[in-house]
């Protein structure tokens, strides 16, 4: 008989080749159970340390039993994947070390998030984090943002409805988010500026109206575009893009209408300012990038030299330096013609900066478009502008889509730098929150919260980028099968 050396062989003999039929379900259940057991163990430990009473569980044994359960759950996962994880001695060692790190990480994370962290700092300052200090002290001005919420709701519903996917793929996550938002709006432990409970009926009505709008637009567009032709869907998407730009302009209009009343852009803040900055800079930056990319590729020196100079100059320095220039030097130059506030100047600099990086990305894409395309279009009688805008640019954008989205993600992350200009964006608020006397030193909570908000949106964008890559057929699957 063959000598059995590897651990996998021994284990397969011990467990007589047990193999669950629903592997993935078992893995998920085991991971979930492991998490819950670990949570219970830590909870018992915390309870023992908090209360010096004679509790029925007052023994370290109980907590340790739950830790053991959790370890067993993790090892069940390891057992299911035993062919992969325990195939050789090196693999056994690697797996055990990895499990140790994961276990330690989970233990630390759970005990921080659920037991030692004081999330009240986030909850009490939720309006500050979302809208900045001005909207916190002038609570009635937040009403200016409700039209934006309605417009975003309709756009979101229409956009997801016209993708032609299954209903539950949007409805379940959105219902979950809606549920959380309703709880967030109605459950308040302490509103700002008072000890009483604030009247949430109006907020709740508006929130429910928002959800109604989303569900209605989603279901209607889903019903209509379920079996539609591709060109109809594309037309609808173009209308939606125009609607998004219109919604952006209307948002700015509602916030700061011409005249005396309204909120000056210098007073905006919080996460919503990061959104506004990022979206404005992405749209404007795309325009700048297209102009500079074509300018740099042009054979005419009057176009190519300035474009090259601008691109190389701006790319040579870090964004922080340009932001400081926007803060210190730009007002001197622009003051007579345009008395720009800090936010407008930041948008200008951010769009220039991202436009220069985008121009380099697009230049690569423009070079990759086959020359035959241009010749064919010219021979059809299109003018040069038409050729560039209708034939070459769409193909270049298609090729460079992943890089463009990663540039967008970078821009979204870079909006956290504007706190250097004294603008109260989300990161700046998170930085100063731990200076409140009730929450002294709660840096990890505030920073992790804001960081995770940035993280979630970047991650979501990168997943969308992967999806676009796949749908455009740009991704070479299979670990480089092509030679």
């Amino acid at each position: 008989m063959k000598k059995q050396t590897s651990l996998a062989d021994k284990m397969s003999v011990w467990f007589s080749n047990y193999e669950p039929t629903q592997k993935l379900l078992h893995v998920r259940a085991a991971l979930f159970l492991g998490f819950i057991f670990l949570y219970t163990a830590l909870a018992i430990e915390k309870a023992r340390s908090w209360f010096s009473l004679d509790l029925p569980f007052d023994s370290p044994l109980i907590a340790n039993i739950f830790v053991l359960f959790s370890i067993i759950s993790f090892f069940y996962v390891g057992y299911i994947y035993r062919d992969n994880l325990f195939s050789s001695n090196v693999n056994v060692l690697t797996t055990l070390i990895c499990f140790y790190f994961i276990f330690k990480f989970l233990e630390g994370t759970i005990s921080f998030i659920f037991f030692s962290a004081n999330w009240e700092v986030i909850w009490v300052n939720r309006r500050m984090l979302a809208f900045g200090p001005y909207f916190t002290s002038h609570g009635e001005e937040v009403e200016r943002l409700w039209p934006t919420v309605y417009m975003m709701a309709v756009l979101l519903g229409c956009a997801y409805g016209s993708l032609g996917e299954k209903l539950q793929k949007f409805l379940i996550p959105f219902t979950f988010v809606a549920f959380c938002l309703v709880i967030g709006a109605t459950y308040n432990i302490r509103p700002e500026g008072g000890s009483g409970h604030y009247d949430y009926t109006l907020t709740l009505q508006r929130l429910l109206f928002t959800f109604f709008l989303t569900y209605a637009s989603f279901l209607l567009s889903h019903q209509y575009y379920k079996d539609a032709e591709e060109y109809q869907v594309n037309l609808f998407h173009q209308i939606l893009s125009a609607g998004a730009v219109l919604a952006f302009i209307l948002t700015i209009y509602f916030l700061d209408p011409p005249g005396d009343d309204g909120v000056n852009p210098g007073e905006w803040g919080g996460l919503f300012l990061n959104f506004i900055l990022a979206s404005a800079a992405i749209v404007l930056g795309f325009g700048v990038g297209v102009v500079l990319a074509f300018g740099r590729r042009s054979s005419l020196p009057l176009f190519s030299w300035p474009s090259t100079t601008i691109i190389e100059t701006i790319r040579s320095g870090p964004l922080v330096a340009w932001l400081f220039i926007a803060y210190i030097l730009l007002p001197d130059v622009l003051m007579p013609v345009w008395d720009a506030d800090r936010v407008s100047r930041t948008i200008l600099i951010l769009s220039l900066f991202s436009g220069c990086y985008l121009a380099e990305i697009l230049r690569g894409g423009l070079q990759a478009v086959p020359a035959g395309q241009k010749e064919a279009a010219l021979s059809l009688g299109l003018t040069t502008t038409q050729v560039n805008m209708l034939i070459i640019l769409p193909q270049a954008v298609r090729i460079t889509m992943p890089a463009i989205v990663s540039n967008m993600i970078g821009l979204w992350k870079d909006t956290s730098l504007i706190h250097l200009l004294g603008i109260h964006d989300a990161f700046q608020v998170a930085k100063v929150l731990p200076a409140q006397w009730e929450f002294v030193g709660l840096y990890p909570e505030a920073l992790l919260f804001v960081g995770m908000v940035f993280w979630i949106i970047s991650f979501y964008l990168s997943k969308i980028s992967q999806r676009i890559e796949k749908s455009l057929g740009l991704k070479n699957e299979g670990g480089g099968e092509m030679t």
Partner: protein
Amino acid sequence: MSISYYVKYFENVKNNPRKLLDDSWNFLINNWVLLVGIYFYYILSRNFFRQSLLLLQEGQLGVPFYYNYITALTNPAIDSLSFWLPILFSGLVFTGIYYLNIGRFNPKESDRNGQLVFLLALIPFIMYFILQLLYLNQTDKSWYFGLEYMDEDSGFQLSNDWPWETELQDSRWKFYAVGISNAARVVVLSIILSTIIGTFFGVARLSTNLVLSKMSEAYVEFFRNMPLVVQLFFWLTMLGDILPRHNEMWIFWDWFYISNRTIMFPRIILDSALFFLLALFSLVGFRFYTNYLDKDGFDDSEEGLRQRMYLWFGTLLVFSIFLKVAFTLEQPELVKPNPRAYGTWYFNGGEEISVAFIAMMIGLTIYTSVQIAEIVRGSIQSLPRGQVEAAISLGLSPFQRLRLVIIPQALRSMIPPMNNQYLNCWKNSSLAVIISFSDHFAVTYTIVNNAGQAVPAFIILLLTYQIGSMLISAIMNYLNSRVTSVKI
């Protein structure tokens, strides 16, 4: 495009007045984008013309050059000029773009005329910017270009100036140089570390072991999508939390002192350069001697191996003795003039690194390492599958496969994007200003605040960044040429 065309057209219109209306309507419909654009151009240029003309008034830029020809640019003149000039320019630009668009010119003419129209359209803006910059240069201190302020006393102190020492009276140049050295220290160290860590995680993500690959994926995804600013500030606050306070500092054998204010370690002092050279010579001599021994091939018999081992140990012994003689270690000495007043404690001797430096190192290294991990993964995945299969069939071990087959080929597609990431790392080091680590950006910012000459300071800053980027690019291009010189 001749007069007769218009004459004929007007005759037509006379017969059929409706045609004029139709044609105008069609013209509006066909050119509405251009018309809207020209309207905005008109508004902009009106503003810019007006401000330029105001700057051309007497007294704004000293005695104007046209003083001999025009006595004064009066307010009514400015009003009428700033009313008519934008109309004239908008009309010219509109006509130019319209005729370029309908394509009446051959390509050469089109190129020339296009550039002319572009230049014409830019005239108000260029004029304004030149005049405004001249005005600012004469009136505003921050736009005065002169480097005298860099020789003056700096008037501030650096929180971390290791390994140099700065005083209040040193010139700003010296402070700037110390700032550059700080930034270079962080960037070089974190490039080296992040390359090692990033390669590890990039390879680990392709591992067949599910837990390892998932764990490295989680590491990469977590740190890649989190803004660097948040990470840096998080590490700084965490270090301040974890490390002990000054009065409870961790002391290791009286050689290392660690607290959240400073970290002290022994200073290495070169006593005799002769013995240091001798130590180096012993290593070089060992290398030559073994080369001489191995000229007929490496002797891997038991006797030969034992001799080689003795040789190794002997050389190491000699080397360490020479080093011991060449250098002395200076112990940091904690001085407590008043044991109860923690603020008065200080150190004599020893080297100091600041907590901000460590936070900077951790943040920058992790952030760069995840980008490098992605690059490594991408370039390994882009390799032909046959290479790995051939290596397996040759009987190479997994580590040998990686070292001898995969990495040398992946390096070819890895180095250009890595160059990009190193440049990003160099530029990202400017975020040190957030955690008050004094790199040259932070020094520049303080100098601008103190001296007020922003323009020359920012030009020096951008030049520094450009030179640093070019250095990194040059090194990476050299590496790239080394790697790609072997044809496969």
